[in-house]
């Protein structure tokens, strides 16, 4: 498959209070952006278990985005700091497993930043298009079910 025809599959975990509302704003404001992202709403970016990220990659995602409230703005005070710490540590571990850290992105998007969400989605899609499909070992990385 040439990278021209490659449409990345992106999974986005968006927090209920800021980023999901920001994405909703992008929609109601009729901003257009790359349709590659599949949004999953979670209550807080700190709720995103690293297992979710790995499972997304193993099940065929080419990139994973976690998006939460700006530092200091978390609805639960500190959830987004947990997301930040996990993101940095998991990125390091993903590189050891041969998954480029560009495929795993953390962004802060507030409820007012529809435009930023649009730009993040476009930018992330472009970046993953350049990297190409992840295709974890030819799809042989099927995870064991819980």
């Amino acid at each position: 498959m040439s990278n021209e025809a490659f449409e990345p599959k992106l999974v986005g975990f968006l927090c209920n209070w800021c980023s999901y509302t920001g994405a909703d704003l992008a929609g109601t404001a009729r901003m257009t952006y790359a349709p590659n992202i599949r949004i999953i709403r979670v209550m807080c970016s700190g709720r995103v278990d690293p297992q979710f990220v790995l499972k997304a990659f193993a099940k065929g995602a080419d990139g994973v985005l976690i998006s939460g409230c700006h530092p200091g703005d978390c609805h639960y005070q500190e959830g987004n700091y947990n997301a930040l710490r996990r993101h940095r540590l998991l990125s390091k571990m993903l590189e050891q497993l041969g998954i480029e850290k560009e495929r795993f992105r953390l962004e802060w998007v507030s409820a007012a930043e529809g435009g930023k969400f649009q730009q993040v989605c476009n930018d992330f899609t472009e970046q993953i298009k350049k990297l190409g499909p992840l295709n974890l070992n030819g799809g042989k990385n099927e995870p064991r079910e819980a």
Partner: protein
Amino acid sequence: MSPEKPKVAFYWCASCGGCEEAVIDLAEDILKVVEAVDIVFWPVALDFKKKDVEAMEDGSIAVSFINGAVRLSEQEEMVKLLRKKSQLVIAFGSCSHLGGIPGLGNFWNKETIFRRAYHTTPSTDNPEKTVPLEKTEVDGKELHLPSFYDTVYTLDQVIDVDYYLPGCAPPRDLIMNALQAILEGKLPAKGAVLSPNKSLCDDCDRNESKPEKLAIKEIKRPWEVEIDPEKCFLAQGIICLGPATRTGCGQRCIEANMPCRGCFGPTDQVYDQGAKFLSALASILDTNDEKEIEKLIETIVDPAGTFYRFSLPASTVRRRRMEAIK
């Protein structure tokens, strides 16, 4: 030898021999085992051959205990044969349960492992650059060796497994409990790990010493500090996999003043031990500042190898991507 006794087989794949030792370590209890069952196949101790197993009727072995991960074609062939001949297959020990230490080979592939083992280690003296071949001619005769796979597999990735006896190696009381459960027909539902389903911290003697809120300012490696023998390892800044590891081991490492390395694998609620531990560790790093977080994480030298020390092949990603290996 009475004909009614259930037949039992032991087999080893990619393992160190420690699991065989665990059977020997049953000491006098082994007599109770031999009284209750007939051991029909056990390459480390008894002289039965593959053809003897082939000659048995399908399903005639009551239970096969198989230790070691699967990384050679020979191992795959043998475990498939034992599966056919056995009513129950029990994955015995960390390597067959999760991949174990040999599973760390999944950071590499056949080519890079051979290059390292046969060419580039400082102790290698191999001017002819000999490597094991699957087919060789010696004095006009053709010799065969099993093929070496790029990837190490857990036993249940190769054959259907009924139960798991965790641990590196499984402790004596768990082995005896399992044997008793088999003999009395009191086994839990298929697929169970035969050890309590809670985390090591739940049982740990040092749990009392854990502060209400764990917070790590500095990561320390066991050789860098004098370890307090009473205090929670994580509270001392030492990485201990207890929170993400199943209990039942009898705290062998903790009592020797070493942190948990995770050989029992995760509890039933968790499907990726390394990711779950990563989650726990990241949340107790005691800073919210981006730069400080990154600096602290730099001191965690080998997260994948530490968090998946025994479970890389059983993890969600299973191995380093082949494309990323040079």
